[in-house]
């Protein structure tokens, strides 16, 4: 058992040849096999991963991520490895090139173990819209893991392996991270290339790291960022080490808590846990103020309009002609489109595409979409203004802890409302992280969201790592100890 050791320890063991990458890969696959009922994966990359691990035996261990297994959300394309977006319409799709983030993790000689389960095209908040069935929460198999990056959250929480990639359009990294008790970061919009991330809502989508602890998260982010000429919205920045502020004292930090985040939309067990953390921060010399931030209560409405609108346009490419599933016996080309999409897409996706198409059609584009973009601008200004006076914003990540897999899915608004606290961060393009801060009475994890100004991920990691150490929670659902 090596994967439960700290990354630095594993790195030493690899360097002095006590272990080989194949040992880590085999351990990861054994863990996944033991946890198979959690349904965290859509496709495993066993043969290729073993081959890759053996190739690495002759290479120099030149970085901390070398030889380490990683899971990739199934909306990030991987050359030669099936990428389905958890949809029937792509269930036979084999990409012919790699996403930029995949090239980056390959450059570090990390080993891709498999593609994780998710909501179909990342549309949902419980991963129950997956064509392959929902993943189960390692803390209680009757509960959801959240979504849309539910499979990545599940495999990290259950300690199958140390690293996973997720994507976050309206909370899809942070919300499942909260439900499963792991660390999940949505970086600043533009930090990480979206090239090869199957687009859902292009102005909101961002890839990010999901890990068991804060240090690993920052370490993986180091490997993922950078300008990519294949993504115009990726941003050129000076190189920085996101782990550099970890371990620093937080005395004098100024932290804001939006009143809306602590209002009665959030269950009491969660707000009281967040209040405990606030008291802890104060006792350690940080300033914490409750503030009002305009437009936060409008975030879900804006998100519905912008995300469904952009989704309807992005998903127009799935036409049954160029790749993926295609309806068998069409009468004419129109018939290919209509029936491929009818049979290929699941219910949630169809609903969103239909409403999105309507919102963008004719005059509606002005009435809804342009208006949403206008209010979005004001919401971003309101949030950015907070950082004139404060270092960070904190609050709960979710309004409840993980709910039952069997809870009804007949309310189409529900999956949006689950993300009410995480959506504003995407709207404003800011970085946000989920940190586990405790458990409710049913021993289900509670998460806190830490939001920073654009490109200030390092500051988020500083506070997160400080709290992680102070709280010193047992976050392994199997009961074992976690190392640093």
């Amino acid at each position, binding site marked *: 058992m090596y994967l439960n050791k700290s990354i630095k320890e594993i790195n030493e063991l690899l360097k002095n040849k006590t272990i080989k990458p194949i040992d880590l890969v085999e351990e990861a696959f054994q863990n996944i096999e033991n946890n198979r009922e959690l349904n965290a994966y859509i496709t495993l990359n066993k043969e290729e991963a073993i081959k890759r691990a053996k190739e690495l035996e002759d290479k120099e261990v030149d970085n901390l991520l070398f030889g380490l297994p990683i899971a990739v959300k199934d909306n990030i394309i991987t050359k030669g490895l099936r990428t389905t977006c958890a949809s029937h319409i792509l269930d036979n799709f084999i990409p012919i090139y790699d996403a930029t983030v995949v090239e980056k993790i390959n450059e570090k000689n990390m080993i891709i173990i498999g593609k994780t389960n998710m909501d179909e095209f990342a549309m949902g908040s419980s991963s129950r819209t997956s064509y392959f069935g929902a993943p189960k929460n390692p803390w209680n198999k009757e509960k959801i893991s959240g979504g849309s990056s539910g499979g990545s959250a599940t495999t990290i929480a259950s300690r199958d392996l140390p690293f996973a990639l997720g994507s976050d359009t309206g909370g899809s990294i942070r919300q499942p991270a909260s439900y499963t008790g792991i660390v999940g970061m949505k970086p600043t919009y533009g930090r990480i290339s979206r090239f090869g991330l199957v687009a859902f809502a292009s102005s909101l989508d961002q890839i990010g790291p999901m890990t068991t602890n804060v240090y690993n998260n920052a370490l993986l982010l180091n490997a993922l960022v950078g300008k990519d000429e294949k993504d115009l919205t990726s941003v050129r920045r000076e190189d920085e080490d996101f782990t550099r502020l970890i371990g620093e004292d937080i005395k004098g930090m100024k932290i804001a808590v939006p009143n809306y985040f602590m209002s009665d939309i959030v269950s009491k067990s969660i707000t009281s846990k967040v209040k405990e953390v606030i008291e802890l921060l104060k006792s350690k010399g940080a300033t914490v103020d409750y503030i009002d931030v305009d437009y936060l209560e409008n975030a879900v409405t804006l998100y519905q309009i912008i995300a469904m609108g952009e989704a309807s346009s992005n998903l127009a490419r799935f036409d049954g002609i160029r790749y993926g599933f295609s309806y068998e016996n069409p009468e004419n080309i129109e018939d290919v*489109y209509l029936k491929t*999409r009818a049979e290929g897409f699941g219910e949630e996706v*169809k609903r969103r595409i239909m409403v999105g198409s309507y919102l963008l059609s004719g005059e509606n584009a002005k009435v809804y979409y342009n*208006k949403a973009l206008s209010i979005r601008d004001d919401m971003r200004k309101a949030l950015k203004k907070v950082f004139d006076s404060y270092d960070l914003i904190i609050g709960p990540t979710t309004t409840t802890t993980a709910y039952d897999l069997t809870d009804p899915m007949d*309310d189409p608004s529900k999956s949006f409302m689950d993300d009410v606290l995480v959506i504003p961060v995407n709207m404003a393009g800011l970085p946000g992280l989920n940190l586990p801060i405790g458990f409710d009475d049913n021993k289900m994890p509670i998460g806190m969201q830490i939001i920073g100004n654009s490109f200030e991920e390092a500051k988020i990691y500083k506070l997160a790592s400080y709290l992680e150490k102070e709280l010193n929670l047992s976050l392994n659902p199997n009961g074992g100890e976690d190392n640093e």
Partner: protein
Amino acid sequence: MKEMLTKEEVLHVADLARISLTEEEIKKYQVELKKLLDDVEKINNVKGYDDDILIACWENSAELRKDIAGDMLDPKEVVNNAPRHSGNYIEVPVVISEGEGA
């Protein structure tokens, strides 16, 4: 406010989205789509915002890549990904039938 969309309204949005629907689905979406459309109506209650719009949260100016040919995908691989293909071509069903042309 009415409880559900008409059948015609549902068929209209399905047509915009290029999705065919069964009778059963139409009934379901009459209710479900109405719920989502009611949700988005709430945008009309928001007051006080200015006219600036935000298309994407993106602070740098456009940095376009140089217009030079780079590595290309192998056309054979691209075509092989299509459900129906032949040689270097993607096959599609008939677009305009006899008697349908201008």
